[in-house]
């Protein structure tokens, strides 16, 4: 057993209000440079919708991620020989219009304009060419379901659902999906990089682009099924979410997580069995990838795991953080958090608690077996998003959230414990109190349990301001 460490994130979609506060500090700190204007290492998508870049989830179009060929994992975009033959023109590369053409406004006009009868106006100008432009697409263009009637049918998560019904105003549903790099266990971007510039850090599993080794072949951009590696059109190299590693190393949460006003994000350590990663990613049935993914995660309280981890040189503070990991509890112990599109076979490490939703006005005719089927957000849609279409794990998570609410409501309102709803979902009052605390009350130190990195380089002050993106200083 080879034990590896991964910093993972869980986002509680049940609490996301779509305020985009997470995107702002990320943008301000990491991607407010020339060539990076269009990049959002963290963005918040409104679902249903086709997202950013357009239809990123549709791998028949974008050909990202992995597929199985005779039981073996293979990049969906083709193997090494295919890449070598197409290296002068990557057929699967999205262009900037699939994201959006970045624009700015000529604010100086407001100041320079001479006194006139009418107020001066500012026109949008392309940040690519500097020419005036008429924005027709942008980040969050679909926010609050804007334009859903036009774009909604392009959302692949409607597979198996009568999407036309859900695109009617009466039955429409909506929730937000904040997205960032998944820092996958089996990252397709890393496997796609001809230069070997992308790598996964052994200490914390963060996937990074070595900016001095990137030669701009662009296969990582098309290879990532989440489209979270970006191409800087000025410098000609790839950039991606770095999970704010300079902050994580100091024990601080990422900017997106720290700034979240809804406190929906959790960060912590997971221990996993690195030897069986490709095996789990190559699980034949896409619906069995999520269970195989769970099986990779090791119990940090298990004495054998701890012993093996120590013998493999994993630091004591990392093991301590793993034992108190909020993400391990949400993912593995309570089964509340689910991976995003496990069928891409990259074993993503940013997990999502599915959202509850109001009861729909259109209550299904006849008697419904399951109250969950009356929720506005169809379970099948969430299952397509989070479990490759397998509904039972989504139902379990939603039922547990519902049972917790019912239990806590009775306790608060009636002053008594009614464990009946808990029995049906396999929870006990003690566990529910823990879940309730973590999801509703937990302060910063409980939501983010991060070990600091060992200080190995005493030249750190000397290098201050001298590293990072070369053009940013």
């Amino acid at each position, binding site marked *: 057993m080879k034990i590896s460490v991964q910093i993972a994130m869980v986002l509680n979609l049940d609490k996301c209000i779509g305020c985009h506060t997470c995107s702002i500090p990320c943008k301000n700190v990491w991607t407010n440079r020339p060539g990076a204007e269009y990049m959002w290492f963290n963005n918040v998508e409104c679902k249903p919708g086709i997202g950013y870049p357009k239809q990123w989830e549709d791998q028949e179009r974008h050909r990202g991620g992995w597929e199985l060929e005779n039981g073996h994992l293979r990049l969906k975009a083709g193997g090494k020989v295919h890449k*070598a033959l197409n290296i002068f023109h*990557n057929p699967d590369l999205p262009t900037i219009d699939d994201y959006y053409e970045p624009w700015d406004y000529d604010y100086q006009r407001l100041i320079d304009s001479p006194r006139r009868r009418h107020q001066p106006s500012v026109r949008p100008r392309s940040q690519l060419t500097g020419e005036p432009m008429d924005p027709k697409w942008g980040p969050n263009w679909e926010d609050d379901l804007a334009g859903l009637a036009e774009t909604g049918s392009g959302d692949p998560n409607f597979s198996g659902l009568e999407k036309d019904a859900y695109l009617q105003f009466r039955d429409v549903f909506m929730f937000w999906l904040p997205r960032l790099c998944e820092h996958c266990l089996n990252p397709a971007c890393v496997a796609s990089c001809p230069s070997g510039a992308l790598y996964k850090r052994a*200490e914390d599993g963060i996937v990074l682009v070595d900016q001095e080794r*990137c*030669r701009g072949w662009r296969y990582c951009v098309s290879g990532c099924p989440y489209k979270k590696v970006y191409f800087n059109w000025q*410098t000609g190299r790839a950039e991606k979410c770095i999970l704010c590693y300079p902050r994580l190393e100091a024990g601080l949460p990422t900017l997106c997580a720290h700034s979240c006003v809804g406190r929906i994000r959790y960060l912590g350590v997971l221990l996993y069995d690195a030897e069986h990663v490709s095996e789990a990613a190559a699980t034949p049935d896409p619906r069995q990838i999520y269970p195989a993914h769970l099986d990779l995660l090791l119990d940090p309280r298990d004495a054998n795991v701890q012993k093996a981890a120590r013998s493999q040189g994993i630091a004591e503070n990392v093991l301590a953080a793993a034992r108190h990991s909020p993400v391990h509890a949400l993912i593995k112990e309570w089964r509340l958090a689910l991976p995003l599109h496990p069928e891409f076979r990259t074993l993503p490490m940013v997990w999502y608690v599915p959202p509850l939703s109001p009861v729909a006005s259109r209550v299904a005719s006849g008697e419904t077996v399951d109250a969950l089927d009356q929720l506005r957000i169809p379970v099948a849609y969430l299952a397509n998003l989070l479990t490759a279409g397998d509904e039972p794990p989504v139902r379990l998570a939603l039922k547990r959230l519902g049972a917790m609410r019912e239990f806590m409501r009775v306790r608060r309102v009636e002053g008594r414990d009614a464990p009946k709803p808990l029995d049906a979902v396999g929870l006990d009052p003690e566990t529910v109190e823990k879940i309730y605390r973590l999801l509703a009350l937990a302060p910063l130190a409980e939501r983010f349990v991060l070990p600091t990195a060992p200080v190995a380089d005493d030249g750190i002050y000397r290098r201050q301001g001298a590293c990072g993106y070369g053009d940013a200083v």
Partner: protein
Amino acid sequence: MDLAYTLVFTVFPYLCLTAFVLGHACRYITDRYGWTARSSEFLEKKSLWAGSTLFHWGIIFTFFGHAGGLLIPQRVFDLFGIRADAHMTVAYWSGLAVGVAAFIGILLLAWRRLVQPRVRVVTTVNDAVTVGALIVVIGLGLYNVLFGHYNVLYTLAPWIRGIVTFTPDPTLMREVPLSYKLHVTAAWALLGFSPFSRLVHIWSVPIYYLLRRPIVMRRLVQG
């Protein structure tokens, strides 16, 4: 006259080769961050396909054709029963094919740089010089194939081998036609300029990718 030949066909090639070697070393040490092809496919993809594919495959085979035809002496070919006229015939037709591909390709790429507003924005003076030099060198080469009809195997080829083996003999270039002289001189200049341009991406051809494991792990703290 001798001095001119020495300057143009001995001193100048070595100057360019020196710039080539030292330039690459210097660029790699000081500017690894800028060592990239600076692809513009992300900004404009449709008109790139034909030009990029034609140019790259054309120029790669042109390179191997030059290396095989010029650096290997004719007497080696004679050992294998390939006579000089057969060699020249093969060189003519293969050179014509790949040369035309490369030339059309670079013209398409140059045209794209001029007419696509987004691509024009990311085009630097350096890029313009690079594309211009490539057009000149490839154009002269193609002119020689089409209209030169000159056997280079016993004059130009030995001269190149002399440069490479550090036994230069500029007198070999005496009877070589002007268009060939211009072609080689422009090519040396391009070679000397290449380390300072985006052409450095040639050295990053990802051969190791074919051998390495798919997932790369790196350890921050050694030990």
